[in-house]
């Protein structure tokens, strides 16, 4: 099991932004001229970091920078990252669709890749013919494919359409057949890029089961890219995370995923002008800022510590009733943990800015990252209530596995829930 299936060494990939057209001939000729004189290609020196949201200064961009990792035989490696982080480019290089600009990859064994829906199908050929075509693409001989044919058709569940040209298939059917072909043609390395997006729930489950089977029972290596983090967590044995074309994290799936969620949900500032669900909120009373108050210059809360936040808001219109603040704590994968409300103490008889300190006492949250959603309004859970402003995921904060006296929390598993409650009594009745 310790043998390497893939060794990726210092891979870089450069792309040209914008229209490839005018000026290409000139660039190409000057490139050739540099090469001819034995000098380094001048265009390899330039190129900006890959960031989809910012407009870059020049036309060349590094889609992948300095990627280095190994995959062991029989391992299921998850690759996560935002859109445009370089995941698909990496997979394209691994499946030899395009080549890297710099660096080297060693691959041991036959690679089958499922990049997007309907991999390599020819639309005019029937499903059956396409199975043969895909097998041949993998370098298999005819007899080998015939031996697997029934299993493939059976797994895909498209028997009724198997002698119909693939162009008549729905996208889900293409995906089903594509997955079945890739998984059953017994490649040594299976590359799966975001294919679960199209299939129905039943087939998704089937796929995940098959991928698990392929790796753990048949000992094959799987590379799995998905935005379905639950699936990544369940399936993979290790994860890498790409961000702006760089490999920024590598390790156990739970840890990498948590880090990913923290990065993607936490724009480091705590202003939240863009986080309102609709325009309606925040007209009369507007929440503007929430900042965690940590003890002793740290950037996290201790386990068991009273959680304190500074909440700022503006009153644009006077209200007769006193206001209260409500908040909901949820995990990064959107599971709500609990909600609470303060008592109505905020006077709203004058227009202006207000700062309040929100204290959540005795809430023993299990170590990890949490999101806090915030609301301001009148009323409570028991009576009618009305909110003036609601900000979802206003803040992400961490609880470290460390009490204020320096002890770690043991004997706690995630499936126990997220809160440790210790006001429990037991009496003889």
């Amino acid at each position, binding site marked *: 099991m310790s043998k390497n*299936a893939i060794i990726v060494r210092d891979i870089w990939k450069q*792309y*040209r932004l914008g229209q*490839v057209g005018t000026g*290409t*001939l000139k660039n*190409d000729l000057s490139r050739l001229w540099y090469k001819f004189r034995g000098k380094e290609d001048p265009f390899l020196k330039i190129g900006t970091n890959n960031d989809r949201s910012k407009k870059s200064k020049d036309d060349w961009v590094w889609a992948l920078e300095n990627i280095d990792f190994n995959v062991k*035989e029989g391992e299921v490696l998850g690759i996560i990252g935002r859109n445009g982080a370089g995941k698909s480019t990496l997979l*394209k*290089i*691994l*499946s*030899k*669709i*395009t*080549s*890297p*600009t*710099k*660096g*080297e*990859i*060693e*691959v*041991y*064994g*036959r*690679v089958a*890749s499922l*990049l*997007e829906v*309907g*991999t*390599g199908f*020819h639309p*005019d*050929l029937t499903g059956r*013919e396409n199975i*043969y*075509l*895909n097998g*041949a*693409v993998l*370098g*298999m*001989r*005819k007899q080998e494919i015939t031996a697997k044919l029934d299993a493939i058709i059976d797994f895909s569940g498209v028997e009724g359409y198997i002698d119909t040209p693939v162009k008549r298939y729905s996208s889900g059917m293409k995906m089903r057949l594509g997955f079945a072909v890739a998984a059953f043609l*017994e490649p*040594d390395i299976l590359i799966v890029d975001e294919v679960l997006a199209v299939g129905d729930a039943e087939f998704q489950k089937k796929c995940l089961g098959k991928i698990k089977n392929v790796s753990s029972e*048949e*000992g094959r290596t799987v590379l799995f890219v998905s935005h379905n983090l639950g699936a990544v967590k369940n399936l993979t044995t290790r994860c890498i995370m790409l961000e702006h074309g760089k490999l920024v994290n590598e390790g156990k799936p739970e840890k990498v995923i948590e880090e990913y969620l923290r990065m993607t949900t936490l724009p480091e500032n705590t202003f939240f002008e863009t986080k309102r669900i609709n325009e309606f909120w925040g007209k009369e009373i507007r929440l503007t800022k929430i900042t965690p108050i940590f003890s002793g210059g740290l950037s996290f809360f201790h386990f068991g510590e009273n959680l304190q936040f500074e909440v700022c808001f503006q009153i644009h219109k006077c209200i007769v009733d006193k206001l209260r603040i409500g908040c909901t704590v949820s995990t990064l994968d959107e599971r709500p943990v609990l909600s609470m409300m303060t008592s109505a103490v905020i006077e709203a008889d004058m227009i202006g800015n207000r700062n309040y300190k929100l204290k959540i006492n005795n809430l023993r949250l299990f170590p990890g990252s949490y999101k806090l959603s915030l609301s301001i309004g009148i009323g409570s859970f028991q009576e009618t209530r009305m909110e003036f402003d609601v900000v979802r995921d206003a803040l992400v904060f961490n609880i470290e596995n460390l009490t204020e006296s320096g002890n770690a929390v043991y004997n706690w598993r995630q499936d126990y829930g997220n809160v440790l409650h210790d006001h429990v009594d037991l009496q003889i009745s």
Partner: protein
Amino acid sequence: MQIASNKKEIIKPHKSLFDLRLIELWNYRDLLFMFVKRDFLASYTQTILGPLWFFIQPIFTTLMFVFVFGNIAGISTDGQPKILFYLSGLVIWNYFSDGLNKTANVFVSNSGIFGKVYFPRLIMPLSIVVSGLLRFFIQFLLFLAIFCYYNIKGEVTFSFSTALLLLPFLIILMAGFSLGLGLIITSLTTKYRDLSMFIGFGIGLLMYATPVIYPMNAVPAKYLFLVQANPISPIIETFRYAFLGSGMFSVLNLLYSTFCMAIILFIGVITFSKVEQNFMDTV
């Protein structure tokens, strides 16, 4: 379990210019035949006349040539029956032009499958040349049938000439030309689409520079060098010479043709294998 058989492969930015991976190509021969079959079947699915289309195109073109060039323009056919003369040129020329047209677009028209799976890219143009060969044989049968008809009618007399033995060689030459030129053009069109504009009418023009609708010996002496400089001319002339006994056959011209073909094919294969690694980024 084939884990024991895992062979190592290295993915690198630049493979060397002459690393053509011919062994890998051989391993994928099943794929080649599958593409040939696909190409052949797909060309007449959803048609009523089906395979008849392979005959219809040369027949109508020949009739049109007979009318326009033979009857209106009155260009010499070297004393041969007009139909036979034009058909002999067309059958060979079609193989070349069809093959060239399709290989010249191989990257653009197959970017769908090339973008999703890996196989040696050269398989695709090779399959075009092979499936073109099937089409050629069908049209060649048509030519033979009409040839026999004129023999029975007595308008031509068949005499066996050793030039007939050159037929397979002529086919290889034509295949080489269409493959080589097509590879060069398709490699360049991934970045510069200008060439695909050119290819559409370029092939049509090239036909007039080749003795398809006229015999070589009808060319005025001062322009003869132009037609002779065209390396495809000797192939058609030799073909006519072999069957009809007319035309200018010279070993020297044929050698020149072979030499040109070898160079074009060589350049084609090398540029193609250079471009194939990264064409997905620019196509």
